[in-house]
């Protein structure tokens, strides 16, 4: 199951935030193939947003082949994203946790931590 939330100050459009949150959940494995996404009505009840926005986000996910809408039943996850398997995720998560603990012991604040992580991701990508 996925719990949507909105960051109203982010400047990112609402529908894009929904798309990103579904993708994030697919990457982290909290949403798996076969899982049902909340109905537009449920999302609207939670966030007080225009239902067309939810439908638009779902259409976008459907276009990318990540979910599929079954008329009268709902929207279901078709496939997950990210190359890693769930086992890989668990392993990598454990080593990242160890790294975060080391960084904290070395006196890094959360902001330093984010900055360092971001810099390394960019470096390695380049």
């Amino acid at each position, binding site marked *: 199951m996925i719990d949507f939330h*909105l960051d*109203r100050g982010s*400047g990112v459009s*609402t529908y894009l935030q929904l798309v990103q949150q579904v993708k994030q959940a697919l990457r982290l494995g909290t949403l798996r193939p076969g899982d049902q996404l909340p109905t*537009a*009505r449920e999302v*609207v*009840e939670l*966030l*007080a*947003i*225009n*239902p*067309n*926005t*939810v439908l638009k986000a779902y259409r976008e996910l459907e276009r990318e082949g990540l979910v599929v809408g079954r008329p009268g039943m709902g929207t279901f996850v078709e496939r997950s994203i990210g190359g890693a398997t769930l086992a890989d995720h668990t392993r990598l998560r454990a080593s990242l946790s160890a790294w975060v603990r080391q960084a904290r012991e070395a006196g890094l604040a959360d902001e330093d931590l984010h900055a360092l992580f971001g810099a390394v991701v960019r470096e390695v990508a380049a």
Partner: protein
Amino acid sequence: MIEVTGLRVRGRLRDCSLHVPAGRVAALVGPNGAGKTTLLHTVVGLITPDRGTVRATGDIAFVAQDKPLYDSFTVAETLTLGRRLNRRWDQRLATARLAELGIPLDRRVGRLSGGQQAQVALTLALARRPDQLVLDEPLANLDPLARHEVMRSLMSAVAETGMGVMISSHVVSDLVDTCDWLVVLNAGRVQVSGDIEDLLAGHRMMTGPPELTLTATVVGGSRTEREQSWLVRGAPVADPRWRTRAVGLDDLVMAYLRSPEAAALPRLTGVQA
């Protein structure tokens, strides 16, 4: 669908035309005194225009500004009013909604909080199962929690029934996540009418050094000694000395309101620079 053609109300509306497609949640924004209430009253038939026509598909329900209700009626009597005065009426929806909100049926309307009164007024409108719901400043005078609750109820009803909605407000930020159609009314004229995403995609903010000249349809902006910044309509300018960024709904509305002579109406599409 709501279609307004050549509407004139002496002293308040000048030749207003607009078209909101079916099932849209339209925001009617404009400064105080722009004629929003007059336009809505004309749409729901409270005002007979001097000239022009209003066409709307199906039943229209209206929630007026300040959510007027009969203070001496109990909530249950208020529902009876709705049931007796309307052919279509969903009593179960009404009582279920009020029960969910924890509003007692035997309480006098005058003794409810502002937020509760707003919910009763909204329930009265929703239980008619209208094809169109028109709301005049529904969030004014409500605390943030009540605003959220009202919007949540409204959007959930839209998700369920697919009805069209028109909401007026002078606070644009209230409507950012809920509306998908924008109508800007300024000094009795319709200045902007269109799909919000199309409008946002069709405008951008361009910032550049002061000596450059801009060849684009400028809505508004400012120039200082160090730089100039303009909100423009249409394709981005190729010149790399201009920095381009996307606009928000607030920027867009403010820019149009500051330039009353600018307009973004359907018939103008395609004539942009």
